[in-house]
Every structure is written in C-alpha cells, then in structure tokens.
C-alpha cells in the first residue's frame, strides 16, 4: 500500500494523496481554498487542530487536508466535535457540515451546540441541495425547488438558519460566500479565535444540482463595519434581510452577531484532583 498522507513537514504540507472528486466549478473549492489559507498561517499548531465532517460532498474536505480529522456520519458532526472538545479542550475543532447534514439530519445537535456554547467552529457548506445523493431539496432550498424527491417542486418554505441560531443562543453567527475566499478566510479566522460556538453558514453553489453563482454574485454584500455585532436585535433584523427564498434584495455576508459568554468547556469546571482510588471510594460510601 502506498504511503499517501504527506506529513506536514514536507513541502505542500497540507496536501494528501486523495484525489479531489468534486465537480468542476463546485463551490466547495472556494471553501477549501479559504480553509487552507487560514491553516497555512498556523502550521506550528496544526497538530492540535481537528476537522470533523459529516457525509456529503462537503465532507470530503477532510480527505483533502493533511491534519487530524474525524470523517463522521451524516448529521453528526457536532456531537463528535463536542465529544472531542470536552475530552481535550486544548484542541481546536472545526466542523464541516452540509446543509442536509446540519439543518436536516443533524438539526437537534445544532440547536444544542448553540445553546451550550460549545467552543467549536462550525462551517455549513450550504449549497441548499443534497449534493452527494444527487439533488434532493434541503431545509434551505427555496419553495418550489424541483429535486429528485420533489419533482413537482418542494412544498416547504426554507427556514433561515441564522435566525434559528440566534434563537438557539449562538454567540457567533456569520454568513460567508464560497465565491469570496478572502472574506471567508477572515470569517474562519475570527471564528477560530471566538471562545464559544462560532457558526458560519457558507453560501456554496452546487455547480451540478443548484448553480447559484450568478444569483449570489449579484446579491451578496459585505456587512458594513457600522453593524453593531453585539446587538442581538440588530443581528436578528439583519438576518431577516434574506429568507433563503428565490428572491433577494441583498444578501449580507459577514459577522451578524458576536458576544462573549462562558463556553460549555469553561463551565464544565476543572476537576479537583480526583481521589480516583476506587478502593477508598468503596470504603467511604459502600460499607
């Protein structure tokens, strides 16, 4: 068997032997570019970085970056990530999920990671379609979306994941666009330094099943510096600017909301040195 993950101390330190199998033009390339540009600046600490992914086109990203990773199962990025983080709070965790993954199968974990303020970065590759299973509608597909499970058009309105996150107690809520790597990279960097749950919904065109480049290129605007990121009501309002439907006036990208709150891991208080001696414990409590 050939040795096929390069160790990071070699040239092209982040490359693996995996052949990239995304479609030409896929928005995932933009996300990968942004991620790599962030990681490239942190080469020294990559040993304590872990990527966690679900299952879907997006999830292949972990095969393409030579760092620690857990390629988990559909919808379960967050509990795996939470488990890793609470086990070893010194690790930095970035979760990559699809919209099917994060907003469909895994929505329960998303609400709770936000509620608990688990100290993680969570990047949703939101192509608004199930890519890998060949094009069904997802929770953020617009109403009327003709996918393979809804050939006559979906009958459901999408929900707005940013608002859902705000309602769940998230402390960092952002939106990026795969078509703007530099901007996205900066979001990822800020998310990584945010103590607590840092959520980034990334608009990711699916070239094959839902090509939204043109739409986003026209509508996406960067949030201006004046936006008060610590103002919940302002964030709520801004998040309402676009409802993930077919129409949009403008689609703001950037950080909608950011506040500092104790993280779950901080609250899980450091343990006193345990007695750990089961024999002693038995003597104390079981006689």
């Amino acid at each position, binding site marked *: *068997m050939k*040795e*096929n*993950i390069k*160790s*990071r*101390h070699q040239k092209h330190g982040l490359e*693996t*032997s*995996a052949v990239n199998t995304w479609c030409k033009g896929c928005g995932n390339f933009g996300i990968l570019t942004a991620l790599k540009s962030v990681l490239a600046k942190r080469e020294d600490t990559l*040993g*304590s*970085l*872990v990527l*966690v992914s679900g*299952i879907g086109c997006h999830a*292949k990203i*972990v*095969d393409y970056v*030579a*760092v*620690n*990773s*857990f*390629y*988990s*199962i559909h919808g*379960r990025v*967050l*509990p*795996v*990530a*939470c*488990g*890793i*983080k*609470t*086990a*070893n709070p*010194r*690790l930095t965790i970035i979760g990559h999920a699809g919209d099917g993954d994060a907003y469909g199968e895994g929505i*329960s*974990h998303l*609400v*709770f990671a936000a509620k608990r303020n688990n100290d993680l970065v969570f990047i949703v590759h939101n192509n608004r379609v199930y890519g890998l299973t060949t094009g069904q509608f997802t929770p953020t597909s617009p109403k009327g979306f003709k996918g393979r499970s809804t050939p006559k058009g979906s009958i459901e309105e999408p929900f707005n994941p940013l608002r859902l996150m705000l309602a769940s107690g998230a402390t960092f809520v952002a939106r990026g666009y795969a078509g703007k790597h530099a901007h996205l990279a900066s979001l990822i960097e800020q998310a990584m330094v945010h103590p607590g749950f840092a959520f980034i919904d990334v608009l990711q065109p699916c070239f094959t099943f839902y090509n939204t480049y043109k739409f986003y290129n026209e509508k996406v605007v960067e949030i201006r510096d004046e936006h008060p990121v610590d103002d919940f009501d302002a964030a709520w309002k801004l998040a309402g600017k676009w409802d993930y439907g077919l129409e949009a006036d403008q689609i703001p990208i950037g950080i909608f909301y950011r506040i500092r709150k104790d993280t779950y891991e901080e609250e*899980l208080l450091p*343990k*006193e*040195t*345990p*007695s*750990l001696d*089961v*024999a002693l*414990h*038995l*003597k104390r*409590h*079981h*006689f």
Partner: protein
Amino acid sequence: MIKKTEFSILFGGKAGDGIRQLGTLWAKLLSRQGYRVFLYDDYPSLIRGGHNFTIVRASSTPVLAHNEVVDLVAAFNQESIERHAKSLKPDGKLLYDADLAETSGIGVPWSSIVGQAKAGKIMRNTAVLASAAKLLAMDWSHLEHTVRSELPKSEKNLEVARLAWEATPEPVFELAETNQEPWPVMYGNEAIALGAVGAGLKSYIAYPMTPASSILHYLAAYSDDLGITVIHPENEIAAVLMAIGSSYAGIPAMVGTSGGGLALMVEAISLSAQSETPLLLVECQRPGPSTGVPTYTMQGDLNFVLNAGHGEFLRVVLAPGDASEAFHLSGLALYLAWKYQIPSFLLSDKHLSESLFCQSIDPGRLPKIEYKAWDAEGRYKRYMVTEDGVSPLAFPGTAGIAVKATSYEHDEFGITTEEPGMIEAMQAKRLAKRPSLNKELDKPELVTVGGNEDSETALITWGSNKGAVLEAAEELSLRYVQPLCLEPFLESRLKSLLSGVSRVITVECNATAPFTNMLKAHGINIDHTIVRYDGRPFSVDGLLAQLKQEVPL
C-alpha cells in the same frame, strides 16, 4: 424469640414513601453486622402513589437473590397488607402503621409518631426502620450509628427512631451473630460505574433512561471524587457520538441506556467499528418491545445487542450476574474496547442494575486500560495493517502527525477508498482481531460454575438470573454453569464444562429463550427451558417451584 441466621423483610408502601431508601438502610444496618444481604426493589413507573415494595434478604452466608416468602412484612398502608400478608412464612410477622390500618399483627402508630416529633412525613421510614430493628432484637447502638451516618437531619431522625423503638413491642426474632467482616453493599449500576472507573473510565455521557439512569446519577454525584466528566446531552444519538469523539481524543468514555436508547445508538455502534474507535456501551434491559414496562425486568435484548449495527464487525458482549461480576466485567469490557479498538457491550437488566448486592470486591483485580500505542516512528497510519489487526493508536494533539479517523472504508492513512483490493484488505484487517480476542476471552473466570460439579444435570443461565439459579442448583445439587461472555461465544469451554452432563436445563427471564437457542445453534443439546416473562425476576423460591412443576427432576 425465634432464632434466625437468615431473615427476609418486605417493606411495602407507596411511591414517595421512600421504600427503597428504607430497604437500603436496612441492608446497610445488617451488612454492618457482618450479614450478607440482597435487596430486590419492585416499583411501578410513577412518582407518587401506586404500590412499591422492597425485599431485603439477609443471611450469615452469601445471598444473591431474594425469596418471595418472607419473615417480616412492614406495611406502610392497607394495600401493602392486602398484597403481602399472604407472603409471610408460617412464623412470619406483619408489622404495620397502626394509624392507617387495622389487622392482626404488630401495629405501631408510625404516622402519629412522626406527627408527634413534628418530623417530615418521609421520616416514617426511620420509624419503620426502628420498629423492625427492635423486633429483631438489635442493639440500639447499631441503629443509632446507621441513622447518624446515613441520614441528614440525624437528630430529628433519631428522635423519631427512639419514639418508634419505644412504641414497638418486645423482640420476636433474634439474629445470630456472624463474626464476619462486613462486605460492601452496592447496587448493580454502582458496580458497573465503579468497575469502569477503576479500569480507567474518564467520561460518562448519557441521556436518562430507566433502568440505566442510576449510573448517570451516581457518577454525576461523585464526578469530582472519581475524576469523571459527566454529560447529559440532548439525546442518545448525541451521547454516543460524543463518547466516540472523546475516545478519539484519547479520553475513555462510556454510555449507558436501556433498549430504546440503545436502538438510537445503533448507527454509531457501526461507526465505532469502522473507525476503530473504542466504545463501551452499557445496556440495562427492561421488558419490551418498545416502551414496554419501564421499571420491570426482562432479558429480551440479547439478540439485538449481539447484532446491533449494519455491516460485519467484531464486538464483545459481557453479561454479569451480580455486582461483583458487574464490577469486574465493566472494567474488562472497557479494557477490551481499548485493546481491540472495538465496540464493547455490558449487558445488564433492571434486576441486576437496581438490586443491591453485598459482596467482597477487590478493585486491585480490575484490568486497567492499555492499548497499542504508536511508537512515534515515521508517518502515522491510523489504520496500519498489522498481523493481529490492531493498529497503533495516537491521538490528535500530537505534533507532526495527522490522526484521520473515518466512517468510510479507507486506506491505512484513513483516506477514503473504493478500490476492491483495499476494501477487502481493510475488512480482513478488522476481522483479523478475532483470534486474539477469542483467545483472550477463553478463560476459566469467564464462566461461573457452581452447584454440584459432579451432577449429570446442569442448570445453565446468564445475567441477573444468577442468584436464583445458582441457589437452586445448590439446593437441588445440580451443576451450575453461567457464561459471562456471550460474544465471542465460548463454545469449546462451555462444552467441556458440560462434559458428563446428560441433562441440560436452561433458565432465562424472557419469552423466546434466545440464549438457549444460541446454545442449540452451537450444538449443545437442551432438554428443558424455564422462562419467565411477566416482568418479574426469578426468586429462589419461585424458581424452585417452577422447576418442580415444569421439569421432572
């Protein structure tokens, strides 16, 4: 006074009366005097009201099961009298709250006593404890010591105890002295928790579910002492995946639940197998299918646990029969999960998990987690192909390497593969752990034997039936065999332990006898099968009666 070296008491009342706590106190009171005790707790799925009862059997010799017929019934209310007076031995006595019922027997006005002392109603417990202690001619000092050490507000409790003691007539029974060292008392779930901790557990993640919840409550209560992180997350799916995440990060984790909760973990079990992430799962069975009868007992999930998860992979399933076995097997299950990087199951049930045992336990004999660690040479391959199928482990946080775990079929580095040769090689690698695993488990201590080892009739059973079946075997002078490891199946060892046996009787607490069918499938001939599936566990006397009726012995 009637002299006793063995004594069974039944406390009966409503949920909320504190019947189980009372039983536990009583058990401690007696075990501290060198008695061996066993407590069976019978309660419906409700919070206040209904009918609960707890039987505590104490004996100068070890006991691991209860009898349904008892020496003393202590009744908190009329319903308890009606239900249980008939379970008394001919020389048995009925003790009851004279304020709430009237009948023949020994009435003590516990309710008035509590009122008189201006104590909370729950302190009737203490009054009953005192009355029972007095009837057994116990020293006041024993009672006082237990009340002081176990109860909050001990002055008030002692006042109640004293009043009840005085209001109770003179002793009827006398317990012989044992001159034995006390043994620890613990519920089955406490033994499970402590065994795992002793073996190196660092994290317990669970969503509440009867009869597994008490592991959660116990470890949460002692998390600081024991150095355990305890997490109660949004659901069972999150629990098991967090545990997998924790193990991946190098922190041994366990989950615990009952059948319905385990059902939600099935996808993750398969993930543990494919990603070769160690995982310990405790399943405490209760009568199913589905919600079934939440607070009662059944051994109905054996086949489910043996086969949970899609795809083909190795697992270990250990099934203890008492607290001591639970303690050691819990540690062993964790140890095996790590040594072989596989999912490992500890299979319990309500009867084992929520009964109190009194056994000598030696934490020094627990296995301690060990694993094949990466030697830090060359590039790290998470899934390196080795002769024994076990790849060296490293954890994220190690500089210079990438630890890539995955749910996909993969190459040695953990990169996804779809190549036929690699698919086959990796599946073969994982299954290559089988011979060493089988060998590791083929040990005498993984089959409990007892009774008359020369008998040509054998009673075979598993799990929580142990106490009743072992005692029946002793009583009837039959051979007793109980495998503690159900997967891998210890075929040759069991066959050799059955050599010379001409008649095999199996005992299971379920309807379709899956364990019996497993024995048959491995070519072991079964002559009779005793089952019980009304939600109640086997008692010694109940089983003896059933054996008598169903099997021509």
